[in-house]
């Protein structure tokens, strides 16, 4: 009786304690509902984003995949010596300058003797691409023995026939609304029944430069231009960017001037790329006389554009290297430069490379600044060096997208596919390099 009541039999907890748990329970439902709403919005946003990406890819692939095939028509060609080599000398010069267009036309007339009259014959000639004479010329140059014989030659089909075979032209439209006349339709159908029409993998798309004729246009020139431009961009921007980051982060005094420089580098990363193109035009071309339309000037401009990205990424990577490594190196008597190059830089390299590859991927997709320095020119020849006139893949896509011909639509999409492929490869490389060089400390 002298002991106070034990805790177990104590009166129920004070009313204030009960009320706290009630209040919590009452608000709990509302709090969870809010969380559920947020989760739903997040998931919906991700779904929507994936949906749009899916639509984009579906559209590009469905439009572009046909460009990887090309229609060929088999034509028996009699390599008439009287026409190609009238004096019988077999002189390469004479053979090169012979009338191959006439040869194509003559062969077609022979294959379809029923087609008469100039307009009908013009339609007949349109079956075959304007590139066919070059095809025959190359054949004669390589094998002069074909002269005087008749060979079945697969010639590249004209763009309209190509579109028809790929199903891009609707046969059921009235003739007046259609690119292909009824008479051509019958010719194509006849070729089909004869087995003289065929679709093959379009190697020309990867080996030809651009062309006015869609069936002859390829991305080799743009690819070569892109390669030269990006290689030089990397060569210029990587060492300069890493050097600048190293100096600013590790060596430069921290004062108002370096603060100003840092702010400006961050701002430069956000400057519209076309401004860099204007700078390239004004400084590199007009003042220093760098030849325009070349990978050289393109790389200079893209390097300027990429530098801020590389510098910012490199500084962040350098900053993340623990100071204990610097102290360790300085402590055994390494000079500051040795400390940086032997220890800090190798540890920062994965981050630096990621930044550099992201910068390069951006440069790969850039077209606006290159328009300002003349890389939009129509260039058929494949560039062979840094000072040849060239264009790059995004600009090529832009040019083709502007062309009205039906054949360029599929080629535009195909070129976009190639560009996206390169982007994926580069980003994959960034991830793999990161994994490969990442070290723990």
């Amino acid at each position, binding site marked *: 009786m002298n002991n106070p009541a034990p805790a177990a039999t104590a009166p129920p907890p004070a009313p204030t304690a009960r009320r706290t748990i009630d209040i919590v329970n009452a608000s709990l439902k509302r709090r969870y509902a809010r969380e559920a709403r947020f989760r739903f919005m997040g998931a919906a946003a991700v779904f929507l984003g994936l949906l749009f990406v899916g639509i984009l890819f579906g559209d590009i692939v469905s439009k572009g995949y046909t460009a990887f095939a090309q229609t060929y028509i088999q034509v028996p060609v009699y390599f008439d010596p009287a026409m190609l080599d009238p004096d019988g000398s077999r002189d390469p010069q004479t053979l090169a300058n012979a009338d191959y267009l006439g040869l194509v036309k003559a062969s077609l007339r022979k294959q379809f003797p029923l087609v008469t009259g100039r307009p009908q014959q013009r339609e007949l000639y349109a079956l075959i691409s304007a590139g066919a004479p070059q095809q025959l010329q190359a054949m004669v140059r390589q094998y002069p023995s074909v002269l005087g014989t008749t060979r079945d030659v697969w010639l590249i089909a004209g763009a309209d026939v190509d579109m028809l075979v790929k199903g891009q032209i609707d046969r059921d439209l009235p003739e007046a609304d259609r690119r292909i006349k009824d008479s051509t339709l019958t010719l194509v159908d006849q070729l089909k029944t004869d087995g003289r029409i065929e679709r093959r993998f379009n190697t020309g798309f990867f080996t030809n430069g651009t062309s006015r004729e869609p069936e002859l246009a390829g991305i080799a020139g743009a690819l070569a231009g892109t390669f030269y431009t990006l290689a030089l961009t990397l060569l210029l921007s990587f060492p300069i960017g890493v050097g600048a980051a190293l100096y600013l982060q590790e060596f430069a005094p921290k004062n108002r001037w370096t603060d100003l420089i840092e702010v400006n580098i961050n701002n430069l990363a956000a400057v519209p790329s076309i401004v860099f193109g204007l700078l390239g035009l004004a400084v590199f071309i007009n003042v220093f006389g760098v030849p325009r339309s070349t990978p050289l000037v393109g790389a200079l401009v893209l390097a300027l554009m990429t530098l801020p990205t590389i510098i910012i990424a490199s500084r962040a990577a350098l900053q993340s290297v623990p100071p204990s490594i610097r102290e360790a190196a300085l*402590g*055994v008597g390494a000079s500051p430069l040795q400390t940086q190059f032997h220890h800090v830089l190798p540890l920062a390299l994965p981050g630096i490379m990621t930044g550099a590859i992201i910068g390069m991927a951006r440069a790969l997709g850039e077209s606006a600044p290159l328009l300002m320095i003349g890389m939009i020119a129509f260039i058929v020849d494949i560039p062979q060096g840094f000072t040849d006139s060239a264009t790059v893949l995004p600009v090529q896509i832009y040019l083709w997208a502007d062309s009205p011909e039906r054949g360029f639509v599929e080629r535009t999409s195909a070129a976009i596919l190639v560009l996206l492929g390169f982007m994926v490869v580069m980003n994959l490389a960034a991830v793999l390099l990161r994994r490969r060089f990442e070290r723990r400390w």
Partner: protein
Amino acid sequence: MNALASEIVRDTGAVSAADLARGGHFSGTIGDITTPDPRMVCREVNVWYGDKHAIKDVSLDIGNHQVVAMIGPSGCGKSTFLRCLNRMNDTIDGCRVRGSITLDGQEIYDKGLDPVPLRAQVGMVFQKPNPFPKSIYENVAYGARIHGLTNSKAELDALVETSLRKAGLWNEVKDRLDQPGTGLSGGQQQRLCIARTIAVSPEVILMDEPCSALDPIATAIIEELIDELREQYSIAIVTHSMQQAARVSQRTAYFHLGDLVEVGETTQVFTNPRHKLTEDYITGRFG
């Protein structure tokens, strides 16, 4: 003169005119700051981090073949003082050092003196084991490589082996010298760092709480090692553990809020502290 000044036992509460001029903090250290055979001599060293006065008029000798322990509560400036001895504070922005520190009579804060060779003479072992993310061999060989201390691969191999033996690590790692140094245990890593330091044959080794990240067994091994190293090197060690200071050092310096309060033979400081602050700290009344 300095020895004389340091012998003065300060009256509690009495503030001299000089103290007032310095802003009221006390001056003068109890005990003998000198040693008969000093390797490094520090006189009236002051350090500022920006506006913060981190070290105030500290004078201390680092004796030859002797271990000097620096103890004191956190933020008392003992690590800062240690880092002055091989100019590691140079790397910190806004850090200013005044006063005189000499190594074998050579003023190390001379304008013309290059800190790079100085750090080869005054090596440092840090609080957290910080081996380079390279192989064990490369960790030890690095200093010799950059200074060009060896002429052949065989010499370098020999140097790596001697250094690892001195650090008591050879038997544990001799079969895996090409494995990364970061793969060792904490205590082994710290001994690797010691091997890396002694590979460049320094005269003085500075240790900044070398055992604070280690377990008691690894700590005991390092402490034994310190005692062995004393025969060849002069050692200054900062530690939070008073038992450690008592075990490994011959002289002990007690720091408090940037002042060097008391210096003396380790046994004397721990058994018979002369200053109230020292006594309070080592009896565990604060710290």
